[in-house]
């Protein structure tokens, strides 16, 4: 079931950015979204999360969420880690996780699960989030979203600007989530990262999903990368 989007149109006031997006993300798969700047990737994330009004359909595990106020969308199993992390800087790692999991009752097994995925956070529970390294902040942003026990996890360029060792840790965590049956949607611009992590790739252009292909059918010099990403 995962995430099923049909005919989604959305934008900012009179400006329409998404023009009938059709897209699916299946449980236990990593689906990457690629496209040039302005193709509508982040707008798609915002529309899915209820931050922008839209028309069409967005279903999570079969339940329609389009039109719900944004604060009610996470309760249906959707979590988004936007670009730039946006942690609650003055709060500690433990407090950030607590806030993430409050609506799920902060069950100890959820906390244990995210700390198994990111053991480094377990060593820094009492540390103020603003003082973490960039990679650790990204881990915390993902961990905090996982406290919602999402069925569908949206990640917006999670490895951008990170050192290789951190990128590997985050990739491992994404792989683990896929193995656990989470539908992971990854907005990513780097071909190498997409080829390493993705099961399927959606290429966006002009506010639509122009092509949806299996990652196994893509190679580093594939036509789609040149045509839709410009690399």
């Amino acid at each position: 079931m995962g995430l099923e989007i049909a005919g989604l149109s959305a934008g900012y006031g009179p400006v329409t950015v998404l023009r009938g997006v059709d897209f699916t993300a299946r449980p236990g798969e990593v689906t990457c979204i690629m496209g040039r700047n302005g193709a509508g990737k982040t707008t798609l994330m915002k529309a899915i999360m209820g931050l922008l009004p839209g028309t069409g359909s967005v279903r999570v595990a079969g339940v329609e969420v389009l039109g719900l106020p944004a604060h009610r969308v996470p309760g249906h199993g959707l979590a988004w880690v936007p670009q730039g992390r946006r942690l609650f800087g003055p709060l500690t790692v433990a407090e950030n996780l607590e806030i993430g999991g409050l609506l799920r009752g902060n069950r100890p097994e959820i906390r244990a699960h995210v700390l198994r995925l990111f053991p480094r956070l377990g060593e820094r529970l009492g540390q103020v989030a603003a003082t973490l390294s960039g990679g650790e902040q990204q881990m915390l942003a993902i961990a905090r979203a996982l406290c919602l026990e999402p069925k569908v996890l949206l990640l917006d360029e999670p490895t951008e600007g990170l050192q290789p060792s951190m990128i590997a840790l985050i990739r491992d965590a994404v792989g683990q989530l896929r193995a656990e049956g989470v539908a992971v949607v990854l907005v990513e611009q780097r071909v190498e990262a997409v080829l390493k992590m993705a099961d399927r790739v959606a290429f966006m252009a002009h506010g639509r999903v122009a092509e949806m292909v299996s990652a196994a059918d893509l190679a580093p010099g594939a036509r789609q990368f040149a045509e839709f990403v410009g690399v």
Partner: protein
Amino acid sequence: MSGAKVWALHLAVLVALFAAQYLLPPYHATNLARVLVLALFAMGYNLAFGYTGLLSLGHALFFAGGMFAAGLPAYHFGFSAGPALILSLLGGGVLAGAVGLFALRTAGVSFMIVTLMFAQAGYLTLIYFNAWTGGDQGFAVPASGRSLFGFALSSDGPRFAVAWGLFALGFLVCLALVRSRFGRVMVAMRENEERSRLLGYNPFVVKLIVLVISGLYAGLAGGAWALLFGYAGASFATIQYSILPMLYVLLGGAGTVAGPVLGAALMFWLIELASGLTSAWLFLVGAALVVLVLFAPKGILGWVREKVWRGLP
């Protein structure tokens, strides 16, 4: 910093403030009672502004609302201080809730302006009904209304005890609140409202709850002021009384539990000292604030938390 240490530190502050009445000359002990009531007001303001990021210019309405909710029944119907204080608490909370229902549909500068407009409307309402409220001149609360469990609140001892008791109650509730899960949600709302929404929190509801709690503090402080110092007047609904708690909080440290009382005390005595030196005392107060903004923009305890003691709540 462990929970036990935090509570011990704050209890020590309360003990020190209680002991101060025996160490200070009577004139300054009475002033300390005033500071404690103003600090109660500022603590409520701090919950909204310092912890949740709601920059209000309407808190004078909640303070005056509590003041008249206590003062009018005492003046017109002979209520004693106990029921009058409860009415002041309710008055501040209900007004804050009513204002919040409208004002919280806005944010930032718009929120400031809308809250200011509500406070101005409240001030004009008090003036309009001057037959009941006494208008700008206000009224003196009668002795019958200044009696609590048989103690006359016009006497130094009971007055200080009630001021300290109400302050202590507000102080401990504030500490418990900001250390609770809800307290962390308040901070999350201040830091990033959109992110909080994406974690499933309804910002409107969270901010409305905080504003009502803040109004309860302001109302109780207003009622206490009327009953302890024997006067209620529409001048307490002017913008000056919305700005004062903001200054106390900024000076002491926004988002710290003890910041408002430190800020209120320093500002009170700074004004006292400056007005004894020159009629242009506002100039000296302004200069002190400029120094503060330049060298400790997060306030005194905000600076302490940043440089010395990260765990300071």
